[in-house]
């Protein structure tokens, strides 16, 4: 059976992509942010995952408001970077782990999830940035991917508990998958930020630091919070953090925090990561 190698939570702020594209990795503004990811990059490179399951939200690039999927699952062989307004970014195409994705599709539908099953899909910074933060900018990605997309734009968005339940389902799907592949699960989005309204620019570093400290050891509170609680505490776009619950929900109750990092503001956003491993 397949193995959950680790769970990783990370921001996916588009400004991170812009900084990389402009060669600002080692600028005064950005170096502390990127340096904080190095230990996790090294750990992942040393443990050689085969598949990355990336949970993220589309930001009005692959889906429009004419048809908004509450949950979508990619089962494609390949995913191209989306054109977000500046043309597609020069990152390699992503190769889909189509076998595992279809296995997951079967498990999701049997387990009473209702995904939009996507065979043609471009992926935006929500997936690009986490992949770059973990794997750098290789000529070809060292893992195959399974994208899981969550609507966090148009209300109603899914509940935190639904995200947790999706994590439980993902856990079963990994356990029942008949290969010995190693799977890295990446919950992305956040941390605190708000792009819209008179509260634009709201960030909450104290709540972010607490999230990073507790999402591994003591996630119960975050699972119980309402969607509005997330908006209030982390900002309207900070509610993206619910997607980390999929990652956390697919892990054991007891996990070890291997690495963590926090930086604010990255552009207008609290940003950071956590790398978790099941206790054994």
């Amino acid at each position, binding site marked *: 059976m397949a193995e959950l190698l680790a769970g990783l939570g990370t921001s996916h702020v588009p*400004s991170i992509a812009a900084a990389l594209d402009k060669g600002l990795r080692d600028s005064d503004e950005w170096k502390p942010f990127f340096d904080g990811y190095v230990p996790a990059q090294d750990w992942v490179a040393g443990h050689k995952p085969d598949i990355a399951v990336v949970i993220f939200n589309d*930001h*009005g*690039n692959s889906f*429009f*408001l*004419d048809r908004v999927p509450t949950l979508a699952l990619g089962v494609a062989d390949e995913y191209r970077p*989306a*054109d*977000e*307004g*500046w*043309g597609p970014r020069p990152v390699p195409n992503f190769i889909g782990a189509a076998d595992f994705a279809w296995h997951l599709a079967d498990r999701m539908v049997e387990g009473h999830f209702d995904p939009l099953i996507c065979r043609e899909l471009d992926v935006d910074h929500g997936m690009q940035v986490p992949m770059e933060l973990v794997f750098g900018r290789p000529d070809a990605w060292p893992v195959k991917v399974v994208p899981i997309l969550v609507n966090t*734009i*148009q*209300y*109603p968005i899914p509940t935190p508990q639904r995200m947790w339940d999706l994590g439980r389902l993902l856990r079963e799907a990994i356990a029942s998958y008949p290969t010995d592949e190693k799977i890295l699960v990446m919950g992305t989005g956040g941390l605190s930020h*708000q*792009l*819209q*309204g*008179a*509260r*634009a*620019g*709201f*960030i*909450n*570093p104290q709540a972010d630091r607490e999230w990073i400290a507790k999402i591994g050891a003591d996630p119960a509170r975050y699972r119980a919070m309402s969607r*509005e609680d997330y*908006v*209030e505490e982390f*900002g*309207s776009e900070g509610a993206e953090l619910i997607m980390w619950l999929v990652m956390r929900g697919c892990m054991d109750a007891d996990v070890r925090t291997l690495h963590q990092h926090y930086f*604010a*503001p990255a*552009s*207008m956003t609290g940003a950071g990561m956590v790398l978790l491993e099941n206790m054994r």
Partner: protein
Amino acid sequence: MTSPDRIPDTPLFDRPRANAGYALNKMAMGLSSPEGRAAFLADEDAYLDRFALTPDQRAAVKARDWAEMVRLGGNLFYILKISAVDPTPIREIGAAQAGMDLQEFLDTRLGKVTNG
């Protein structure tokens, strides 16, 4: 339905806003393609004519009035595509919505907090 602004100054993109802003967001979504961007740059009025914007929405777009676009149902993830055609830094868009100049916005919303 989620009530608007249960959280102060925080417009959740629920049914009333999605309805009000549908044409505005669709116009912006059209800028995801090179063809849409070229059309917008070549003749902004003609491009806007393709979509059923209200006069207020049209004026807000022409004025790059971000706060007003959001008030009229624009969602930032769509209208940001305007800033890809007519470059505007995201933090200026934030400041405009907060009703501050950029430096004040950086200090009070983003800076102070990080230094605190």
